[in-house]
């Protein structure tokens, strides 16, 4: 038997009160895919993400994460929330934040174990922050904070990495560095990035899921003028990505 898909959605409907947010959504995300979820604000991206995390339940249809209900399957998801919902002055170091990803793996009572600390330190090294372990989160740059949150998602040893608007506050150079890191992680993990910024769609991503009440899935090569119109309506300023990115 094949191992189950990281995410499988069948004929899913979701309403907030009487307002339909997602209608007849079916999609699959396969192992080690690098998928981008795009769509206008209010189109249902966040709702779909919260359904995958088991924070919402669909009124109709099915959603499975690694073949299980999301509430169980989410143990295998590493999640990176939007930074905006965190308190910028909260008294934690980069190390403290990464350790939080060990909850659920570590013991319940008492402090974190030596093993937890070892894994957290190693992961901070992997995202290139070994020198900033003891620094307060508040003193880090936007790109560094995102790396800390990625390390926090990774220490739970996930198989699927789910990132909600990871580059919304970053400048282009830092954004590209972050995607280089994700491409590297993609060797071992399935990655889903949510963004409203279609400009990012680049050669990193193999598949684009367009969410605007309904869902269409396209290989990146198919993204063209018609599809963007279909998603965003008429007045969209389209950016072409003919040039390859240069890497350092």
């Amino acid at each position, binding site marked *: 038997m094949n191992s189950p898909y990281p995410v499988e959605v069948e004929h899913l409907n979701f309403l907030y009160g009487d307002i339909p947010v997602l209608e007849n959504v079916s999609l699959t995300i396969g192992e080690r895919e690098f998928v981008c979820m795009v769509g206008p604000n209010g189109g249902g991206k966040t709702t779909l993400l919260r359904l995958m*995390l088991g*924070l919402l339940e669909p009124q109709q249809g099915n959603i499975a994460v690694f073949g299980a209900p999301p509430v169980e399957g*989410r*143990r295998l*998801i590493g*999640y990176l*929330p939007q930074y905006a*919902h*965190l*308190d910028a*002055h*909260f*008294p*934690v*170091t980069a190390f*403290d*934040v990464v*350790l*939080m*990803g060990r*909850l*659920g793996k*570590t013991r319940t*009572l*008492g*402090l*974190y174990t030596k093993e937890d600390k070892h894994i957290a330190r190693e992961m901070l090294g992997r995202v290139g922050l070994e020198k900033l372990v003891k*620094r*307060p989160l*508040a*003193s880090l740059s936007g790109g560094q904070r995102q790396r800390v949150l990625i390390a*926090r998602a990774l220490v*739970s040893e996930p198989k699927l990495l789910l990132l909600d608007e990871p580059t919304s506050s970053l400048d282009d150079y830092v954004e590209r560095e972050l995607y280089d890191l994700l491409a590297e992680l993609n060797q071992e993990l399935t990655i889903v990035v949510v963004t409203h910024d279609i400009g990012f769609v680049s050669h990193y991503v193999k598949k684009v899921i367009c969410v605007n009440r309904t869902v269409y899935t396209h290989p990146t090569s198919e993204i063209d003028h018609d599809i963007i119109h279909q998603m965003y309506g008429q007045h969209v300023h389209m950016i072409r990505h003919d040039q390859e990115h240069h890497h350092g």
Partner: protein
Amino acid sequence: MAEFFQALQQHTFLQHALLAGLFASIACGIVGTYVVTRRITYLAGGIAHCVLAGIGFARYMQVVHNWTAFHPLYGALFSALIAAFVIGWINIHAKERIDTVISAFWGMGMAIGILFITKTPGYSEDLMSYLFGNILLVTRQDLWIIVALDLIILVTAFLFHKQFVAVCFDDEFACLRGVPAHLFYYLMLALTALTVVLLVSIVGIVMVIVLLTMPAALAGRFCGRMSSMMILSALLCALLTSSGLALSYGPDLPAGAAIILLAGIVYLITITLKRNI
């Protein structure tokens, strides 16, 4: 000041007062840090004002129905825990504006307390000491209760430090990692209720919120971690209560008011300085 140290050697009531302040500082440092970082100051204020309902009820039952063992401190604990649970439940489950809900509890707690106290023969002068505290009336029995509450708070905070930090920082992430975030939220509110009751005996219901939050807010400006913030705010709380007590003794001022004014002034001076973290 010299007068205070001399009196301290002679009067046990003054020794009790000083010890009460020092012991309460442990709880204050830990729980104040939760309250400030989780931004539930107003909720803690609501719990504090609900305490009067329990105190009034206990006093009434003691005097009118002869429930002699029902110490007002037990009434205070009872009402603080109920208020913490009910406000917490509404915050999680009802889609109401939480500050409005807290306001309702804030006022109702006071109203219930005042009704019981006015119906209790002969004891209405106590109202002042409940509202504004009287650290000089702390008994040996009160001290033991304070130590017991301290131990409960200290042990719980140590055993679940990981979870509390994670829930204060990002409760949704904690929940996704399998931490029962609602349970820890209730537990945090319960610890807040215990601490509020502790501090009420020192500075009274009306001013408790200042002593709970100012030391932690001060410490937060210098500390980059929750654990160091707890330790520093406990030390600051001990320093503020002891010096407030010492300063108020000579000129015969109310100690609670002196402590609160001192804490507020130090805080306000500090926020005009540059932030360290």
